């Protein structure tokens, strides 16, 4: 899916190629056959969609399309799956405890990611990890609803314990 051949610094051509490959892969997955007619039709449709939507679709420009981005992406996926399962066990424990151990509050954390795509992935990851739900994104801060807030919490503590572990990996492949 990554295009190691395209290391263009400005990124427009590389991102166009990335969008084309993404749409073409989606076509292949949906049809589920590698008949030559299907391949040609899929390539034409994907090319048309890429050409039409590329000037208006800016969300993928946040991606870093270098070969070194693959390793952080894979380690991010691994961390995300582990956190997803931990979140569910944690939520199961809370739901099944008769007294409902909850101490919810809204907290704000800072993020260092600049691009909209990076913030989108970060917000999605936070929503699926233990006890947290992204409520709003304001400039470089995220408003988070936290199920169990430890007493005496500052914004740096919250940033460290919620976003840092994802940002370390995310910085490798998004801006």
């Amino acid at each position, binding site marked *: 899916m990554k295009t190691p051949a395209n290391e263009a610094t400005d990124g427009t051509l590389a991102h166009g190629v990335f969008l084309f490959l993404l749409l073409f892969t989606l076509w292949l997955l949906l049809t*589920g056959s590698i008949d030559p007619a299907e391949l040609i039709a899929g390539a034409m449709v994907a090319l048309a969609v890429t050409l039409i939507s590329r000037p208006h679709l800016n969300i993928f420009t946040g991606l870093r399309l270098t070969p070194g981005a693959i390793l952080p992406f894979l380690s991010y996926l691994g961390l995300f799956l582990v956190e997803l399962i931990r979140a569910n066990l944690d939520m*199961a424990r809370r*739901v099944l405890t008769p007294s409902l151990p*909850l101490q919810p509050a*809204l907290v*704000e954390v800072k993020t260092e990611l600049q691009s909209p795509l990076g913030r989108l992935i970060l917000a999605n990851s936070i*929503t699926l990890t233990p006890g947290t*739900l992204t*409520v*709003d994104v304001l400039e470089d801060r995220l408003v988070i609803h936290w199920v169990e807030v430890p007493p005496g919490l500052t914004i740096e503590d919250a940033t460290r314990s919620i976003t840092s572990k994802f940002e370390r990996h995310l910085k490798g492949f998004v801006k």
Partner: protein
Amino acid sequence: MRLLADIVLLVGAAFTLLGALGLLRMPDVYNRIQAGTKAVTLGALSLILGIGLLYPQWWSKLLVIALLILVTNPLGSSTIARALLIAGVKPWTKTPTTAGKERES
């Protein structure tokens, strides 16, 4: 193979049930969104994994459905939560606390 797929299906159904139970038991809207989103997402993913073990020839379409659920479900929940916060629904707190930097909206 059949046994493994059945166990994965059972785990998925159990997580979905936990999500629905959380939806029923939690005290306010934001906590309900949390319980519903997390448990139901993992439940749907493992149900799809179990079906993929039963019918390996369907993997491509099942992969698309799994990615769709993984992307859209947290986004939809966050959108609802944001809309409720903008509309002025206050989150429930057990005791008035100054923990965290609370937001006056």
